[in-house]
């Protein structure tokens, strides 16, 4: 099971680096990177801290600490994805409202031009 813990450590490091590089290159806004960073740092700490992981496994009722960590990771990422879905939904609503407003304003401008010509 140490192999699984090492893999999760590697995954968390790669995730942290990816997020930081993306923030630096402005591919992701800082406020949206926080959820991913929090999830990745939690994964890193738990995968390297055996006492903490043992306590977590006992708390969740798992015989295997790495499996408990895997479950926690899955739940954390599900929460992050859900939060992003909420953000995307709000952005989509705002985007549609903007597109409709733009179309209506263009309609008014076009009507005003047509009136000026006549």
């Amino acid at each position, binding site marked *: 099971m140490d192999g699984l813990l090492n893999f999760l450590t590697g995954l968390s490091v790669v995730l942290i680096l990816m997020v930081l590089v993306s923030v630096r290159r402005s591919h992701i806004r800082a406020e949206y990177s926080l959820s991913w960073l929090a999830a990745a740092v939690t994964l890193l700490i738990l995968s390297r801290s055996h006492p903490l992981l043992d306590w977590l496994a006992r708390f969740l009722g798992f015989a295997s600490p790495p499996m408990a960590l895997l479950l926690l990771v899955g739940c954390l990422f599900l929460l992050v994805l859900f939060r992003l879905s909420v953000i995307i939904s709000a952005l989509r609503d705002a985007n*549609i409202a903007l*597109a*409709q407003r*733009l*179309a*209506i304003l*263009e*309609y008014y401008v076009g*009507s005003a031009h047509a009136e000026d010509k006549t």
Partner: protein
Amino acid sequence: MTSASLLVIIPAFNEEAAIGAVVREIRDTVPGVPVLVVDDCSTDATIFMAGRAGARVLPLPYHLGLGGAVQAGYRLAFELGYNYVIRIDGDGQHDPRYIPKIYEALRSSNCEMVIGSRFMDGDFEPSSFLRGMGIRFFRLVLRPILGKPVRDPTSGYVGVNRSALQVFSKSFPLEYPEIETLVVLQRRAFRFIEIPCEMRPRMGGRSSITPVRSLYYIFHVLMGVFVNVLKYEHRRRRK
């Protein structure tokens, strides 16, 4: 019928084959009533054909889908002060001869919405087996929610008054809006009636509903119906 009180809107996406004839037919049937084509970012000559036939055109900057296009038309109609709006499809399936009947029903019934129904006279001949199953299913689902039967819940031939316009200009289902719209109205204690209308074959273009999309449609609309019911319950509890 005055042009200041009624607007006919046609949401259209790649309907160049039919839109011109539809607009001309409406203008011949109800002279003086403005026709607004909401172009959902068509890639063909829909805008040109609609404008040439005498319609006003509201071109959307990108493809919003049917609900987004209809809502844009409702928003503009509400801002321009129209009291009644009748929505008609751009493919020629809706016969414009029923516009005066829908308009009169809107004015005389005090209902917020009038639906042009294909199945009022007991005839039930949907265009496909799957579509027929879907309509039957949603009749059953909607019956207890609406508190009354609805014969043609998927009809897009609808007229609304200004109260409904106000609601829809702020909140309107984005995809497949017909059924969800009924729930939105019912949750606000608005009323609707159906009047008989005959539908025709498409004049051109092709339907976007495929068998796979039909299943997605049923799932999506079912979700939308229950979401709208939940929204209402949440608001009532907060009061």
